[in-house]
């Protein structure tokens, strides 16, 4: 899995590519922790190029979501592919996360 991070309108955005599973969660967890520790609890994770997500990866996102919210922020997800969207729907985690159609919308939801 490839990981690329950027900052857009002061919002850290993480772009993931490929399979997001138990073997790939550490750098993502580290990145989210780094942002929250640096007092940047409003994050966007772009899943546009992710074609598979497993339960450990879901846990990692849930953990990030909790940390962000504890610090008064939030974790927005965007651009889910169909197989990934299905997993969010099956687990109903689509009710826990704010999920956006595009990166721009996910950022705008923070910046207003």
């Amino acid at each position, binding site marked *: 899995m490839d990981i690329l991070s950027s900052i857009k309108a002061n919002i850290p955005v993480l772009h993931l590519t490929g399979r997001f599973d*138990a073997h790939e969660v550490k750098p993502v*967890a580290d990145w989210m922790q780094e942002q929250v520790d640096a007092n940047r609890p409003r994050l966007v994770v772009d899943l546009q190029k992710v074609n598979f997500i497993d*339960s*450990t990866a*879901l*846990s*990692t996102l*849930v*953990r990030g*979501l*909790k940390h962000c919210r504890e610090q008064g922020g939030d974790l927005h997800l965007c651009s889910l592919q169909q197989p990934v969207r299905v997993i969010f*729907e*099956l*687990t*109903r*985690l689509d*009710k*826990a996360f704010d999920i956006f159609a595009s990166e721009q919308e996910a950022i705008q939801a923070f910046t207003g």
Partner: protein
Amino acid sequence: MLAEHLETRRAQFIALADSWLQVGAGCVRLLDGGAVLTQYPPNGSLSPHPLIVHSRASNLILQIHGVKADDWSATAAMTLDLLDSLLTADTELESLTAALVETQDRLVALYELTQATRRKLGIPILLDLLLEQACHLLEVDGGFTVLLQPGQPALIHQKGNNLLSDDHIHVAASLYRRDTGRHTFKDAGTLPIGLRNVMMVSLPVREQVFAALGVYNKTGDFTSPDIKLAQSIADHIGAQLENAFLHEEALAHIRLETEMNVARQVQTSLLPQSIPAIPGLDVYAVSTPALQVGGDFYDVILRPAKPVVFMVGDVTGKGMPAALLMAMTHTIARAAVRNVPFTQPHEIVDRLNNDLIEDFSNVGMFSTVFVGMIDPATRQLSLCNAGHSPVVYAPASGDPILLEAQDIPIGVLDGYSFNSYSCKLSADDLFIVASDGFPETRNASGEMFGYERLKACLALGRASSAREIAQQLFDAVTQFSGNGPQEDDRTVIVIKVR
């Protein structure tokens, strides 16, 4: 030394002196430089101008008193040659003996070196023995081994009369690491104080490890044969270290496997050992854990004069953390069902979420949970599905339907309110709650079993008993996976209305 040798050769000296006395000499004397080593007879008469012969091979001087120098000088020279060669032979014999003893010593040390490794010792004791023998063989003050693994602290072991500081060893190791073709370093400002000379050779252990054997402070200098000997000792140590590592890994693996087996037994014993008979319903439930302990649980609980409760849960992840949280979740759920007169499934799930949100958050996990309540008399079913799948309802007349979860898993949001839904079942209806270990089973080409195959399997076997239907499901995924290893727990509850 010469005096000692002369002592052992005294008889020969006297015999030679005697032959001189017979031709008229008064005394025969042997000198080493200016000092008299011996004379015969002890009180023999000395003349002011003896015949004097100087050795060509040593510092020995022979004086023959009381003979005419001109007549006897050639014979005297022969006598001295004889004495010289006798004494030289003795000296040579002595040094050969010393060399023999030394070689014997080294052989014993080499033997010890090989023997040290035949016993199954811990790595520190093994290194201790190996280094001791290496120092002995190379005749140095001390030695050390240093192992540098990426992301781990340096592993240093040393043996010697005066131990070096870790800094000294790091300096030596980094000098060698810069150019592993260079083995010896002499003090020329580059070595830390206290190190006169150092020889380093590499220890062949695992590829990603930089490992070296160092020995230091040899009297004189290290020679090329020393490097060769050190390298062969290092090869030996490397092989033994590798063995010791493998041995330790094997032990750790066995320990882990034993713990995993115990964990799996505990986990299995927490699940219902039998399913109670329920009038009006044919119920079967079973769970097969994956090789690694996992996080699935299920239960079927009869309550007097209340609907039967059945539940399935799946804690995210695998291994001990998942197994521990699964045991907690299951225990709290069972206690809640038994001790609190809940009438709706979501009350149980609310309770689980409130009780466990902190624990789940601490370890960054969550759990899907399905709780159903069914009244066998009225066939009324109410359910709460917290992110769990697959749940399939197969009406007596009609295709199986996948029921999607209505709520998020437990352990995700604090204070979340879960919901219950109800429906009425009819005779021959099928209701199945499984875990994602079924649909997510992969075949050799990575394709998943999926929900459609699951529904098809249920549609096909629906006339069978609950137990047979469960068995057909297991058979279908096992066949699909080509008997590959089971990657996730597989759990299923099958309820068939009679």
